[in-house]
């Protein structure tokens, strides 16, 4: 196999060439012990080698099955294969996404602004800052001479703060004060505490829920959580920050988050509720992009991904695992 096995993993085509060489040889006769070691070493170098090897082996084996169908007479080219018309996936149209551009005046609302599920509202404040309120969230705006204060009552909001050193911008949520000078950040009240994610610039986190008398600085792509188990700080990938704020653009993005957390996120925007009782399932990692509010699409995708099904109970979409069927 010297001619076909080279060092390194190589590109996809090289890997395929090596895989087919091994498959042909091992199908012909049992490999010698040196050859076997060589094959094993190659397979262990990279999981892609195993994938290519399995693929080539399965094709090699399957050709025997197809060849056995040959009576020696069939040589016609088949009709072009037509695929069935695409079924449009029924989209949950129950949720209207409202994104207002900037004219809602906060003072006309007695300082209080709230959103329903499935509603994302963008509000321009009179100092030039912009507040985007996530679904099922509420804030209270209290602008004073020397301070711009926003109280997050529930849910989540993102802030693009207009720079003004004389008049700090402070967001308060459950005993946590997040103070910015000129920056973009998100504050959310989650199940396990208040989450502060910084998109741009720096914020200072304080207040009794911060666990410290000194302000803690949270910078770009960092996240602070005032968890009940003690505050913690994490550095995020820019991709994670993007994911975190996708709701502002009417989307939810999951990139390996746990299914349970993903469902909680989806439920924030939907009148239907995705329920996952199975704790193992709730911990499974999930990848997907959904429109805000499309709980049905989410539940359907999760069910397919994890070999389960969706059971509708009233307004609940219950995800359950299929019993393993000994069908093979």
């Amino acid at each position, binding site marked *: 196999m010297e001619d076909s096995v080279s060092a390194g993993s190589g*590109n*996809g*085509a090289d*890997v*395929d*060439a090596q895989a087919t*060489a091994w*498959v*042909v*040889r091992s199908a*012909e006769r049992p490999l010698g012990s040196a050859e076997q070691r060589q094959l094993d070493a190659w397979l262990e170098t990279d999981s*892609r*080698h195993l994938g290519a090897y*399995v*693929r*080539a*082996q*399965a*094709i090699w*084996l*399957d*050709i*025997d*099955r*197809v*060849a056995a169908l*040959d009576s020696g007479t*069939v040589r016609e*080219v*088949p*009709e072009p*294969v037509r*695929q*069935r018309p*695409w*079924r449009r*996936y029924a*989209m949950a149209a129950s949720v209207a996404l409202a994104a207002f551009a900037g004219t809602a005046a906060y003072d006309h609302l007695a300082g209080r602004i709230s959103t329903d599920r499935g509603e994302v509202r963008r509000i321009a404040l009179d100092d030039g800052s912009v507040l985007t309120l996530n679904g099922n969230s509420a804030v209270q705006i209290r602008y004073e001479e020397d301070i711009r204060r926003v109280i997050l009552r529930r849910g989540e909001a993102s802030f693009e703060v207009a720079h003004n050193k004389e008049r700090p911008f402070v967001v308060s949520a459950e005993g946590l004060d997040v103070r910015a000078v000129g920056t973009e950040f998100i504050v959310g009240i989650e199940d396990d505490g208040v989450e502060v994610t910084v998109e741009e610039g720096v914020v200072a986190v304080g207040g009794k829920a911060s666990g410290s008398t000194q302000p803690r600085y949270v910078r770009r792509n960092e996240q602070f959580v005032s968890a009940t188990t003690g505050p913690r700080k994490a550095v995020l*990938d*820019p*991709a994670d920050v*993007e*994911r975190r704020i996708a709701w502002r*653009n009417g*989307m939810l993005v999951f*990139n*390996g988050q746990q299914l349970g957390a993903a469902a909680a996120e989806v439920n924030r925007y939907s009148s239907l509720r995705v329920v996952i009782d199975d704790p193992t399932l709730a911990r499974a*990692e999930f*990848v997907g*992009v*959904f*429109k805000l509010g499309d709980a049905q*699409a*989410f539940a359907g*995708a999760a069910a*397919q*991904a994890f070999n389960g099904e969706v059971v509708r109970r009233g307004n609940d979409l219950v995800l359950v695992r299929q019993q*393993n069927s*000994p069908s*093979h």
Partner: protein
Amino acid sequence: MDRQAQLRWFAREVLPHEPDLRKWLAARVRGLGSCDVDEVVQEAYARLWTGDPETIRNARAYLFVTARHIVGEHLRRSRIVAIDFVADLDSLNIIDEEMSVHRRLSGQEELARLHEILQTLPPKCRQAFELKKFQDFSQRRIAEHMGIAESTVEKHLSKALRLVSDAMKEAPGGAQDGRQRERRFWKWG
């Protein structure tokens, strides 16, 4: 499940979905060349193989989701902003029709397709392969029959298998779904 049975399961339940998976990946992952698609498919197959086939009820969906995970992992590793926000929100609903629609070829269609592919092989390559697969010749007998060295037969067979498996990366009959989108929402590093 022994290895042979697992390979047969793989051939029956997983392989037929590969062309669609490749098309799906190519359409959605920006800048993902055919070589990168190969890598994602290889990695996905390795994971499917090491998993327990008895627990995989819908191999097609499992394959698609596994591939999507792999792309996601690449994205996270590459530290690139994952989303190209597009106006066409419809295209972002990840639960795609591709996941549920699949037409299985009949045995005769599969056979005709194999013959079609074999016709594209270099003559000696094809001859060796046909002797092996349709006549069940050993490599030694093929060598005698064709008057070439046994090691050359092995090379021919290996090349033939590679060409056949390359051809199987594409859907039979060049079926197009006509929904290839210009806008894609993944960025690749």
